[in-house]
């Protein structure tokens, strides 16, 4: 990077496109130096954010690789266009390309500033920026990619034939036909995702990465460099002489990615639950399948393992069960324990969940993506997402028990099998809960119509239509959080929707960005 003067930057830039940004791919190791207007600052950031959101949406919905590519490509075209190098560029081409690449760089660094401050934000940003990088890397022309790679200081050398001979038995075991494959030897820490899948031979602390997985190597290097850089940003931020005008923008940008997290019990509004309420709520279908399953096991065994306690306990907290009631509830549920054992071994964790012990953090109930992606249940565990973690047979049993018809159960089984766990859950909500909610709405509307108004009659008609079981996806938002199910079911669709809608509005007012649901529609 050098100090090109700010005023005449466009011309200088067009000439410098080959030196400043010779490639589409960018390791983002150089800080941007050009001047940006306040308006551009925000626009750039929001545009990039939309792309990252699109990536997140695709992964939450478990799209397959090809679909994800399409979605990301569409979002990039729209918000973050990056043209490849032209074989014979005109000065006009060069100017345009330089501007695109500069915007890419600047938007990346603005989001770094916005997302470096908390650990959750950093993790979110790294995850999706890495996915974006991987997409672009895979998408890049081979020739450009190879030159770019050779310029980065990450080249791992292919193993020699001697080394290869020494481990050939192992290589052949994992890759039965490997004659024409290249292998790269790196410390196993560099390719953790491959180690985790047992997709590489690991020998004496080194992983032997096949050429087909070379992109994983590069992507991981990108990820770890970004992680360290974000951390150093976070450390530097308090000491930075930050412009007063930027802080509000950065804050609002960072808020964009936060889903509703259901922290804090709803107690403030006066509608708290008590320990006595919980068991009654389950047969009424107010709990999503993952929670009613945990509840069933809690009742049957008088115990839940740690992860199950966390998932269920935090969910209960999100439903509006205050700490004192939670203690009562769990004490009764763990009916095989002595008071003494309970208060010594379990009460701590419950208070911990409510932020009264340990790091005193107000822990948020787990979202669907967290439940689906992390901490897979092991033997003796009942936590997790039944649509993801249960066998088809036991899932079917649970779904039927929840009150779905055979036909709906088949549909749900298919959705789960295809990896659309949250859609399957939403479907279950629609067939089991929506009719009941609609009936409740009819009752309210009927009461209103008794007072004799046309509007009320129309409401009844609408409610009846909504109550029809054949009504398909679209009646409710995709379930993204177990507490969303509860709120929609227990507090009534209207309240839930209104709250959701209000939140959407807040977000739009904050930054003008699309809500999490809008991008791929």
């Amino acid at each position, binding site marked *: 990077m050098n100090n090109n003067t700010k005023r005449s930057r466009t011309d200088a830039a067009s000439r410098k496109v080959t030196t400043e940004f010779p490639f589409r791919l960018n390791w983002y190791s150089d800080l941007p130096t050009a001047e940006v207007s306040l308006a551009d600052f925000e626009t750039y950031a929001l545009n990039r954010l939309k792309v990252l959101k699109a990536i997140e949406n695709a992964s939450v919905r478990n799209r397959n690789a090809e679909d994800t590519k399409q979605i990301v490509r569409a979002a990039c075209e729209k918000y973050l266009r990056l043209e490849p190098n032209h074989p014979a560029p005109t000065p006009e081409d060069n100017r345009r390309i330089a501007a695109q690449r500069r915007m890419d760089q600047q938007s990346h660094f603005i989001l770094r500033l916005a997302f470096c401050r908390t650990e959750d934000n950093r993790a979110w940003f790294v995850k999706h920026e890495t996915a974006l990088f991987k997409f672009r890397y895979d998408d890049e022309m081979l020739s450009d990619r190879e030159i770019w790679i050779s310029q980065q200081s990450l080249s791992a050398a292919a193993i020699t034939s001697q080394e290869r001979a020494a481990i050939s038995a192992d290589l052949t075991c994992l890759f039965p036909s490997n004659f024409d494959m290249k292998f790269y030897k790196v410390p196993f820490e560099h390719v953790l995702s491959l*180690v985790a899948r*047992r997709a590489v031979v690991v020998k004496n602390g080194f992983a032997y990465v096949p050429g087909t997985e070379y992109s994983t190597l590069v992507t991981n290097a990108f990820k770890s460099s970004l992680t360290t850089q974000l951390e150093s940003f976070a450390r530097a931020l308090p000491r930075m002489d930050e412009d007063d005008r930027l802080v509000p923008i950065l804050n609002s940008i960072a808020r964009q990615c936060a889903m509703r997290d259901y922290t804090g019990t709803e107690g403030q509004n006066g509608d708290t639950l008590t320990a006595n309420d919980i068991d009654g709520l389950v047969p009424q279908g107010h709990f999503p399948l993952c929670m009613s399953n945990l509840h069933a096991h809690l009742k049957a065994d008088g115990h839940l393992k740690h992860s199950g306690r966390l998932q269920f306990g935090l969910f209960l907290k999100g439903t509006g069960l205050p700490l004192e009631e939670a203690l009562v509830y769990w004490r009764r549920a763990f009916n095989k324990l002595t008071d003494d054992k309970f208060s010594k071994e379990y009460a701590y964790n419950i208070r911990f969940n409510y932020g009264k012990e340990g790091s005193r953090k107000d822990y948020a109930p787990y979202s669907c993506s967290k439940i689906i992606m992390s901490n897979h*249940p*092991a033997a003796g565990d009942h936590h997790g997402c*039944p649509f993801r973690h249960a066998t088809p047979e036991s899932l079917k049993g649970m779904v039927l028990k929840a009150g779905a018809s055979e036909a709906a159960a088949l549909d749900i089984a298919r959705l789960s099998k295809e990896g659309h766990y949250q859609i399957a859950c939403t479907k279950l909500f629609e067939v089991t809960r929506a009719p009941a909610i609609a009936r409740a709405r009819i009752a309210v509307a009927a009461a209103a119509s008794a007072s004799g108004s046309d509007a009320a009659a129309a409401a009844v008609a609408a409610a009846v239509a909504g109550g029809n079981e054949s009504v398909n996806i679209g009646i409710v938002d995709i379930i993204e959080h177990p507490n969303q199910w509860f709120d929609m079911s227990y507090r009534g669709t209207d309240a839930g929707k209104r709250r959701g809608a209000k939140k959407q509005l807040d977000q739009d007012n904050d930054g003008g960005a699309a809500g999490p649901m809008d991008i791929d529609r």
Partner: protein
Amino acid sequence: MFSDTDNKDNRSEILSQPASPSSDNDATTGKNKKAGYAQPQSARDLGNELEINFDEDDLPTKTATKTTRKSFGVNYITAAPAPSSAPLSLMLDSDTDFLALLDCFYRRLFPFREFYRWLSYGLVQRNYFQNRELSFTLASDSYLRFQSFKDGEELKHRILELKPVKIDIGAVYNAKPKEKKSIQEGRFNALERELVFDIDMTDYDPIRGADICLKCWDFMTVSIKILDRALEAEKNKKDFHRAEDFGFKHRLWVYSGRRGVHCWVCDDRARKLNVEARRAIVSYLEVVKGGDENSKKVSLSSKSTHPAIREAEKILGPIFTTRLINNQDILTSPEKYEKLLQLIPDEELKKRLRSSWENKNKRPVEKWSEIMGETQALSKKKPALAATLQEILFNYSYPRLDSNVSIGLNHLLKAPFCVHPKTGRVCIPIDQKYCDSFNPFQAPKVFDLINEISAYDSAHVGGPSVPG
């Protein structure tokens, strides 16, 4: 009583300070190093030999050797006269008795010196020991987390004072854990910890016979063999072919005192692994996955085999067919073998096997060879069956890890050489080379150990004696 001894110690240390010039220290260091290796330590007395081989670099620095010599040499090796306040009963049925045994155990047997030497890792990093979290469970069941100590001396003093029924080892933090409260939230972070594994028989409940007995220990033996192979470093530089997967040299296996084993991987590289790396290693080692809602917990590829799976299979195969299949009720009653049949993805074959077994008194081995024969014959036509045998084998014998303990950097794990409060057995190291001969029912009980000491003391009148 304690304070008396302490004062004396301190005084001797202060007095000896000017008398031992630095050149003298140099001369004695070598001797001490040797002594450190040669002295028969209680580790060996208690059972198998402690298997941590420190590299030359890992040897305690001069200062460390000096302190250990001064602080532990006197107190530990020659066992200073003990306080006579707690009379020692020979019964183990009340808490006070257990506490008295513990008191004696900590004073006479607990290897403080080695414990400190281990956790200070040669004091290459100055605060490594001081920033380490230890936590104590007391007999009153109160639980003291975030304890930390200046050095081995302070640790020993505190343990003798509190007599914890359980000592847990946590992570090394960026500050002293005992000062945690004065540190701003979010600024107190775990930096390093040994890579640990916790295998407990409870996780085998779905696949094992009803009683816990020596037969079940086969699961643990197999676990040690498989995990230790995967973690192991090359044995011999010339013989690269023998090098194993992760290349860790310093692996300590410990009996958990009841129904499990722990493993501490202490290499520098292992201690520095972040959470993601730990998760990846666990996932690499984990084959049995899924909760109770998932009956098919093992899925292996039929097209290719990972070398780690191949090696594990070599270890599992013989034990499964010679021992587990007979000892663990796997193929006895219909309700047992139905569970196994669920793992076969072919309805016809299942039916055939069922009818062949019904009402006939076939031995488990016969049933197993039927399964083997049938699946192997069919697997050429039906690729779905190619990995079935392997999957069954792994489902019934592959190690089941408590993954959370391994992944979380700030998770606690019971320290080696604790006494299990329920069984009274000492958590002794297991030499992985001879894990076949380890018998948990022969692990020393604190009660017996103290008796042996009493017997020794009374036979050697004039020597240190146990009160009571």
